[in-house]
């Protein structure tokens, strides 16, 4: 029997060093006794066996990172057998190098459960430590009494230092104490509850908050207990309210229901008189304001807002796209997303003065289906194009552009009032019924969807060529 003494209850480095030496020599787990914290030598020392054939450096093996992390946590556990259990797992790792991937292995499962218990204890300490303010020789100090389940104080103290760097504090536990004076974190011996302060003037206020934030109409006592176990209650100033709040909850709820509806407050709070919405100064602004509450088709409901056209009212050219996309829907202005940027670039290359153009869409709400955290664009249906067409007609009537550029099939359909295949009609000026001229080309988002760069470059060049036809109307 080999007896290994460790420096403290949480001496991970010591365990690691010794365990490495033992496992190299092939010492079986059942032949080792681990004693943390230099406790009495119960089983006698025993000699570390000499390295045998094939042992030592040659037999060294690396353990997976997952094991080291698990061991660092498990050494904090209160179980007296934790070092032996870890050594046993280490020993088995020689034979089964991928053991750590097997959460279904009984030994791995047990140690993972222990690590989980330690992590939970660390978390609950962060939650349930309650500081009480005292003055020590004129200096403000915050002191807490806490009883952790495992040996976690040292591992957890740096958290409190990071959180409360600007205040002096001490955390007293039965096993040890931690102190922060604004300069250094130090550890001392264990303490008793009697050494901690018994009250803080703020606690009455905190209890008042606790009582008020509680909703008596929805008692869920088991949910509370599973997260805030009863064992913590005696150190929580608010816990003394739990029993009376529960006892009274039923009465308060019944009272609320019996009371039922009441007469309205005779003197309700009145808002300051609102400044009236400015009346739109021109017909285009009026149309925009009117379109904001359009419900001519169902697309308004899932969308954020109507995206009306934008640009000068006397623009010589109007560009019509398909519909707003994700970005336009959020922003409220057309052509601000990726396709809009593509359009801006092409317009500039074609020598057009973009700022003098009016840009709008055939359909003024974004049509999409949600997919997790994204919205997938859907082409508008004919009925939706038709429902939205009066807005486009209003825009045309008010802006009266000399040239209308329809980008994509949807825009062409809306502008001409009938299907106009893009491929057959692009690249030349067409006459509209009212004497205006029109130009059909692709939608810039079509270029974005092309899979390969060569095709994209070619189509982009064609798009720019088409746009050049607008130059006589909108030259820089």
């Amino acid at each position, binding site marked *: 029997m080999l007896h290994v003494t460790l420096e403290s209850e949480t001496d991970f480095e010591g365990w690691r060093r010794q365990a490495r030496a033992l496992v190299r020599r092939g010492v079986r787990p059942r032949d080792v006794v681990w004693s943390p914290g230099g406790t009495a030598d119960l089983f006698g020392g025993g000699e570390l066996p000499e390295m045998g054939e094939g042992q030592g450096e040659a037999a060294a093996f690396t353990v997976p990172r997952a094991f080291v992390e698990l061991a660092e946590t498990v050494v904090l556990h209160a179980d007296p057998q934790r070092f032996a259990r870890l050594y046993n797992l280490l020993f088995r790792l020689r034979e089964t190098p991928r053991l750590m*991937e*097997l*959460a*279904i292995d009984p030994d791995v*499962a047990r140690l993972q459960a222990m690590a989980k218990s330690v992590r939970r204890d660390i978390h609950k300490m*962060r939650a*349930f*430590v*309650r500081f009480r*303010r005292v003055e020590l020789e004129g200096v403000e100090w*915050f002191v*807490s009494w806490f009883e952790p389940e495992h040996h976690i104080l040292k591992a957890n103290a740096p*958290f409190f230092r990071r*959180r*409360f*760097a*600007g205040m002096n504090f001490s955390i007293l536990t039965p096993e040890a104490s931690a102190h922060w004076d604004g300069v250094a974190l130090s550890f001392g011996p264990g303490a008793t509850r009697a050494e901690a302060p018994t009250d803080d003037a*703020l606690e009455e*206020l*905190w209890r*008042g*908050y*606790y009582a*008020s*934030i*509680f*909703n*008596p*109409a929805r*008692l*869920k*006592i*088991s*949910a*509370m207990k599973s*997260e805030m176990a009863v064992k913590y209650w005696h150190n929580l100033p608010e816990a003394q309210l739990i029993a009376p*709040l*529960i006892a009274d909850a039923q009465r308060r709820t019944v009272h*609320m*229901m019996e*009371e039922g*509806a009441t*007469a*309205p*407050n005779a003197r*309700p*709070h*009145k*808002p*300051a008189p609102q400044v009236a919405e400015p009346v739109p100064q021109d017909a285009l602004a009026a149309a925009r304001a009117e379109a904001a509450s359009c419900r001519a088709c169902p697309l308004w409901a*899932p969308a*954020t*807002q109507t995206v009306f056209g934008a640009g000068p009212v006397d623009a010589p050219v109007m560009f019509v796209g398909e519909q707003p996309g994700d*970005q336009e829907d*959020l*922003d*409220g202005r057309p052509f601000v997303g990726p396709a809009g940027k593509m359009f801006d670039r092409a317009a500039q290359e074609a020598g057009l003065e973009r700022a003098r153009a009016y840009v709008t869409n055939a359909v003024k709400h974004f049509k*999409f289906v*949600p*997919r997790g955290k994204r919205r997938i664009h859907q082409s508008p249906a004919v009925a939706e194009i038709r429902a939205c067409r009066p807005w486009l007609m209003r825009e045309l009537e008010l802006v009266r552009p000399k040239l209308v550029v329809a980008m994509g099939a949807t825009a062409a359909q809306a502008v001409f009032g009938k299907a106009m295949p893009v491929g057959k009609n692009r690249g030349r000026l067409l006459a509209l019924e009212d004497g205006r001229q029109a130009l059909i080309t692709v939608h810039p988002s079509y270029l974005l969807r092309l899979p390969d760069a060569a095709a994209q470059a070619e189509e982009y060049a064609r798009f720019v060529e088409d746009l050049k036809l607008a130059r006589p109307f909108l030259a820089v």
Partner: protein
Amino acid sequence: MDLARKLSILADAAKYDASCASSGTSRRDSVGGRGIGSTEGAICHSYAPDGRCISLLKVLLTNACAFDCLYCVNRASSNVPRARFTVQEVVDLTLDFYRRNYIEGLFLSSGIIRSPDYTMEQVVAVARTLRQTHDFRGYIHLKTIPDASPELMAEAGLYADRLSINIELPSEASLKTLAPEKDVRAIRRSMGRMRARIEEAKEEKRAPAFAPAGQSTQMIVGADDVNDRTILATSANLYGAYRLKRVYYSAFSPIPDASRILPPQAPPLVREHRLYQADWLMRFYGFEAGEIVDEAQGNLALNMDPKLAWALRNRERFPLDINRADRGELLRVPGLGKTAVDRILAARRVRAVRLEDLPRLNVPLGKVMPFIICPGHQPHRLIDRADLASRLAPKPRQLALAL
């Protein structure tokens, strides 16, 4: 009015907001600073007997309100006592509670007084004082007010970890009836602007910080007759459109001094619970909003969780061989959570997962077994049994047990 009385009124006024989360923000601590505060982990510092976590000091700046939302205890026509904190009072309470480790930070909201900008300016002043005067580095969640000015919104986002704006009700028709002054279009526009700013701050390193913990919202369930299918579709829309971190569901709860229009009885709390489970399925388990609720029903089953209910409607997909099924399929097995699925996937790369391994996955075996196959286990046509649902549905039990 003394501080204790104000706190009791203004916490009481805030408790119908379900959110208390303090997670997902940028990691900060007070080392090297002038004050206190850190944002490591989301810690619930206490629990009330309603089972809700207490993580933040959740208060209203004032419960005076010009709006008359019928479900709200603070509506203009309610007779509740009114109070108003000064900016300094909220700042001091936050710091005093934080020093004693009662809270992770502050969740501040307010009734609408005078104008949206006036109200928002007061809310922002609290956050500004905490951050600038006291170098407070804990968590701050601000409720924003639709139609507040862009400058105030930008400043709010600079100090706050999370911003939120409540959608309140799942349909526009209900909002019109129950909260006539609220405008769903304005709410959506605000959410859209917030998403744009949050993404800009994330993408451009030089852009000023903006709500690193994102935005969330809350929907009241059971104050109107909208069904779960519509509620989940609304949530899916909001997650997709505004990249919300969370949609909170708050079962309509009877309030003191209630309006005559509202139902006097609360809906069962378990409905709220089922909606959260369904929400989880959408966000982490690859379910689409449309498939979670039985089309014939319109509402989620109350007597079993939505994944089990879905599996019973889709029995032809089971049983699944847990040593062959892909991750997406395993996530759809009733009783298997993400952790268990990850463990199965890791383990089966080393060796087959057998019957005797299952207890160590810490899953409810009775629920899982009819839906899986593994060496040592074949579910003997259990899947075809007509009474499977009643065998698997949990036995009814009282939700609130005596202490």
